[in-house]
């Protein structure tokens, strides 16, 4: 097989980044809402369309990415198109991509920011098996009118306990974006899971 460069990124990056960002902003402003990324992109596995689009939209040389369960091709793809360095340590990551939700490292391994600078915390992008709104876990908090529900398929049972502990550190804490193919849903650190 001939040696080839990384797969292409966005064909119209200015628009694609703007649209992806707005989907993401809607998702984080409305935790639990499932959004679709509409822009075409064919990233190497295990990056999904949504997770790759998010990273190409937000990451650059100032934001190290930690990759969990993603191989060399995914790393090269991200480095080539975003210029972002690949973080060796979880704690250094501004963004972390986790290819399989069941392999998610403890949330406390990632940078949670500080009380004085909570914005310096990591954003975790976790590829899951499926996202369905309107059923599953009950969520409340800023961005949610009353209560909403989100079903995250493939998530380890311990996640929600860890999530509760993450919320208890507020204003510190990581933020999470679940991705499944072209779908995404967000859990900012303020979102409370009511079980």
């Amino acid at each position: 097989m001939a040696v080839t460069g990384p797969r292409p990124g966005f064909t119209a990056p200015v628009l694609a980044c703007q649209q992806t960002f707005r989907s993401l902003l809607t998702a984080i402003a409305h935790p639990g809402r499932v959004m679709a990324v509409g822009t075409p992109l064919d990233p190497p596995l295990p990056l999904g369309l949504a997770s790759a689009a998010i990273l190409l939209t937000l990451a650059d040389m100032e934001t190290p990415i930690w990759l969990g369960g993603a191989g060399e091709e995914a790393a090269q793809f991200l480095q080539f198109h975003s210029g972002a360095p690949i973080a060796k340590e979880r704690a250094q990551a501004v963004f972390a991509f986790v290819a399989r939700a069941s392999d998610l490292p403890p949330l406390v391994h990632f940078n949670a920011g500080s009380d004085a600078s909570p914005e310096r915390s990591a954003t975790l992008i976790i590829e899951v098996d499926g996202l369905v709104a309107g059923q599953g876990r009950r969520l409340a908090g800023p961005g949610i009118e009353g209560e909403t529900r989100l079903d995250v398929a493939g998530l380890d049972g311990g996640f929600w306990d860890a999530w509760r502990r993450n919320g208890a550190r507020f204003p510190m804490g990581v933020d999470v974006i679940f991705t499944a193919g072209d779908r995404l849903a967000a859990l900012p650190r303020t979102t409370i899971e009511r079980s």
Partner: protein
Amino acid sequence: MTDESDTAGENGYNFAYLDEQTKRMIRRAILKAVAVPGYQVPFGSREMPLPYGWGTGGIQVTAALIGPDDVLKVIDQGADDTTNAVSIRRFFERTAAIATTTRTVEATIIQTRHRIPETPLAPGQILVYQVPQPEPLRRLVASEVETRTMHALEEYGVMHVRLYEDIARHGRIATAYDYPVKVNGRYVMAPSPIPKFDNPKMDRNPALQLFGAGREKRIYAVPPHTSVKSLDFDDHPFEIERWNESCALCGATETFLDEVLTDDAGGRLFVCSDSDYCHERRVVEDD
């Protein structure tokens, strides 16, 4: 690597003026601002072709948000036709070739200075505030190092003391605009110099509220449906302005009114500060 030619704006500038690297940095700041409601996220504010203090923070936030499907409304003092609102609207027409409107209900993004529209905002709309001084504690404490620590420790006693001193001296809290609020029960936040009349509109608003302070290099946010409480005391609850007069143009009695001097003998009349709201009411009447 990144071809940025797909949607070029005027004279070779990028779409919506800002380069993509700057937009990325601002977008990251906006997302963290939404995740920590009311907290001021520092960002690498750029020099804009408009002066600091004239809306550069709001413009940078809008530029990082806006796309070809958006409809932008820009108001200053509630009106679409004030000079700086005209100038900012024209800036985005030139650099992003987007559609603009004066109608609150048609807009997807509303950039504002000093007012929240009278027409209730709808889910999905984004209100972008231009902020001159993002730090609500700055009037009390000049040092950024100190105010940052106060926010980190949720140490807001000094603010309550200041408000209480007002009550002791004047019988009321003598702050009429930029009246401090507490967001989601945690951060004390400057609502920007909106009249306190508008403060209640921030509470549990279905729209996303974003705040940009260009000169002070801060971005902060209130997500939809989020609690925003004006600081007060049980025995001195928060109150908004009321007028005995009504709008001379549309007759509204529940809006924020601008006072207009009509002669040099004390003659004055009052008109809605929200020009679109006033106009809509008159159109309905005429029908």
